[in-house]
């Protein structure tokens, strides 16, 4: 155990919220400790979330390309055999490497990594339990960054085998014949894509009338069409009312606006969302308030809970459940602890869905702008107009720019198309700088690149504004 158990900051959790908070604390000269109950640092993101899913998405995309797209490039492979164990091993290696990196980063920064489960134990004390052994640490401030956990569906209890969460779906030992995905959000669509590309029949069941509810409406409708074309099946406005699990399969009873139906599948992924994970922290004992509806920990503008020395960030507090949002909050919270003006600009947090094509957005969607009663102008540019996209053979999708009608200030950018995840970076930057559509359009982009489509969409907005 490091030192004498007295720290400036103790961070509970080593996910993207926690470990980044620790690194920032160390940078600011604070004595920091990170408590992690798992053997591996990195949290859900690194171990069972963003990273392994991205590794599998990449691998499965190669497989898909080899089977469906290589021929148009004149590359003919005699047969394409999937070696799933190798693919899984590669994924694990990617994860292991990154977990190792985080551990080294913490070590090099002088952050004490303490293994065990933390519980808040009264005035500036954290009790850490490992293998039944308890240690009490002291700190001036504690940052809770314990993340979230999958929300279960009552009619579909997780059994880890047939009915699984986003964790087990990353470790199937063979390609399912028919994978039912309950929930058409980011996780469901990404992991549904993985197994669809690897040969599974995939049916996505969604209660809402559209998939990817957080995305711009036009984007989500386009995504549904493009994924359908790739073979994913969608059952929208549909609820799962029951499940009958046998050795062989699962039969799901569905209700589509009053019409009963059932589908048989061999695996079910339940991905209807995640909720804050606060179990065992001992919040109630200290009187730390949570939102009774969502379970979120209530914090003020400095991420401070009702108890002055306890802070909370990431999935524990309201907002999109994104790794980079957690990191930004972790940094801000630690800065506030250090007496600096730390904060997060929630208007410019990009979100990405790593399907093919990718979906990425930042700022207000058209629906949000409308709902807020803003006068706005929206313009879009399809990737068919992009020379680079044509060379790549990936012309599906478009860039949509939304700006304020009067001032031209950018309100949001939404992209569905190749490398959308990378294109959204410059858009977030422009939003952060309060750029207008014209300023954004005037930035010179290299030719030929996909970012030219971003410029063109901004130009269209600019010219539409002139017609007003």
């Amino acid at each position, binding site marked *: 155990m490091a030192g004498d158990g007295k720290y400036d900051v103790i961070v509970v959790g080593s996910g993207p919220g926690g470990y980044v908070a620790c690194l920032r604390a160390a940078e600011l000269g604070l004595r920091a400790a990170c408590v992690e109950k798992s053997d591996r640092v990195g949290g859900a993101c690194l171990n069972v979330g963003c990273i392994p899913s991205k590794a599998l998405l990449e691998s499965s995309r190669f497989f898909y390309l080899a089977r469906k797209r290589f021929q148009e490039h004149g590359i003919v492979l005699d047969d394409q055999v999937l070696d799933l164990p190798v693919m899984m091993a590669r994924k694990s290696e990617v994860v292991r490497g990154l977990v190792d990196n985080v551990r080294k980063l913490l070590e090099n920064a002088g952050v004490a990594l303490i293994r065990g489960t933390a519980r808040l134990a009264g005035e500036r004390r954290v009790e850490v339990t490992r293998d039944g052994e308890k240690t009490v640490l002291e700190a001036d401030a504690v940052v809770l960054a314990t993340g979230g956990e999958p929300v279960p569906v009552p009619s579909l209890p997780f059994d880890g085998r047939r009915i699984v969460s986003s964790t087990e779906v990353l470790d199937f030992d063979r390609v399912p014949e028919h994978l039912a995905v309950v929930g058409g959000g980011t996780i469901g669509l990404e992991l549904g894509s993985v197994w669809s590309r690897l040969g599974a029949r995939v049916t996505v069941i969604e209660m809402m009338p559209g998939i990817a509810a957080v995305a711009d409406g*036009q984007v989500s409708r386009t995504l549904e069409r493009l994924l359908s074309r790739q073979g994913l099946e969608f059952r929208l406005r549909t609820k799962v009312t029951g499940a009958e699990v046998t050795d062989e399969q699962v039969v799901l009873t569905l209700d589509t606006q009053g019409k009963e139906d059932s589908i048989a599948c061999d695996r079910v992924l339940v991905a209807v969302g995640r909720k804050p994970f606060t179990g065992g922290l001992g919040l109630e004992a200290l009187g730390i308030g949570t939102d009774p509806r969502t379970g979120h920990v209530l914090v003020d*503008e400095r991420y401070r809970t009702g108890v002055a020395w306890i802070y909370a960030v990431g999935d524990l507090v309201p907002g999109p459940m994104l790794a980079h949002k957690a990191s930004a909050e972790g940094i801000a919270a630690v800065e506030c602890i250090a007496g600096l003006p730390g904060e997060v600009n929630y208007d410019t947090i990009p979100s990405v869905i790593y399907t093919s094509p990718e979906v990425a957005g930042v700022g207000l969607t058209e629906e949000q702008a409308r709902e807020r*009663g*803003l006068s706005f102008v929206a313009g879009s540019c399809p990737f*068919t107009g992009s020379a680079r996209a044509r060379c790549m053979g990936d012309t599906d999708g478009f860039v949509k720019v939304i700006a304020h009608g009067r001032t031209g200030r950018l309100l949001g950018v939404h992209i569905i198309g190749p490398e959308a995840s990378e294109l959204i970076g410059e858009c977030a930057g422009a*939003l952060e700088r309060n750029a207008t559509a014209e300023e954004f359009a005037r930035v010179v982009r290299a030719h030929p690149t996909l970012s030219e489509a971003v410029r063109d969409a901004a130009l269209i907005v600019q010219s539409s504004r002139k017609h007003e």
Partner: protein
Amino acid sequence: MQIEVKVPEVGESVQEALLVQWYRRDGDMVRKGEILFIIETDKVTLEVSADADGMLKILVPEGQTVRIGTVVATIDLEAREAKPLPTLQPEAEKTGEAVEKAAEREAAAGPVPISPVHAPSPSGAGTAEASPRPIVSESVKELLAERGLDAAQIIPGGPGGRLTRGDVLAFLDERGHETTGKPAERTVTEPAVMPEAPRRVPPRRQVVFAPEELTVRKPMTPIRRRIADHMLQARLNTAMLTTFNEIDMSRLQEIRKQFRDLFQKKHSVSLGIMSFFLKAAAVALKELPELNAFIEGHEIVYHNYIHIGVAVGAERGLVVPVIRDVDKLGFADLEKAIVDHVRKIGENRLEMSDLEGGTFTISNGGVYGSLMSTPILNSPQSGILGLHKIEERPVVVGGRIVIRPMMYVALSYDHRIVDGREAVTFLKRIKECIENPERIMVEI
């Protein structure tokens, strides 16, 4: 009543498109602005939205290739659900429409503009349950103080009831629409104006706004914007030139004087000068048809009728009601038509059809006392005749200086289609007809 839902034009070279998907089903009640279906061409994918509220009747199923302009559905406007549909964007679409149309046309080959939309003002826009005390970070507090705003004025849009920088900026963006009203708000940071005002701003950050009385910013009314756009287009898209002449009005004045009472008695309308100018213009336009023609692309469209617009200054802006078939109407009919239009304008009853279809325009700046002016074309027309005030001036007639009631007249014309000779001849014909009104009668 029902309206047709057509496959929109997506570009000049595109003849047909694939109707990929219907988002609404046959018989659904749809709202204006709602996405109905999606079409795909080799170049673009386009979402098509409803133009009105009503019941959708689908005529062409999805998966079919349809020609541009095909009617794929109708919307029955009368069909109503038990409870009235909440409108998507109350008054918004009205102003947005013109822009939307323009945008559609530009869609052409590459980029597709989507609807530029004007949404209603932010007043009742409350979406999130407005928490009593929004969470406001330091930088946002500073921004609020800088602009003299109170956090309670703005609905927080960030997670967990946070007021974000973007919320404040959007509020400021929007406020332009309804400015002028609250000078106090803006002058909070101006100690000279309001010495008692609470100093919310640290001195180093003082932002001084121009005193509200010196400039007032108001949004242009839709009609003013239309006029502005129309005027600018006329300037930008024509080769406009003006030629002048002067007219001795004495004969016309004599005739008017002579028949004033009789005319009034018989027709219940007074005999003005405008009917003479309308008739004179009809004679001249028949002789010089280019002034009655439009340019469309690389073609000239000649009109075998003479519909003349008469510019009338109305309270809300200039309007140009059109008098149809001027050549076929008598003096009394013309005078009545003018009186009728003026009354309609006053009662705000003018219809679109009253303003459409003009082939030439007459504008009388004389009623305001203008001595001479260069009228601006009412595009796509190719000519506009400007009348001015009648003034007694010394002129030389038969080698002697005499006093005559004189009027300068101006003809602005589009030099792309009308040559100088034609323009000058036209104005000379007007002059001849007015100086000798009998020429109108015998059409020489």
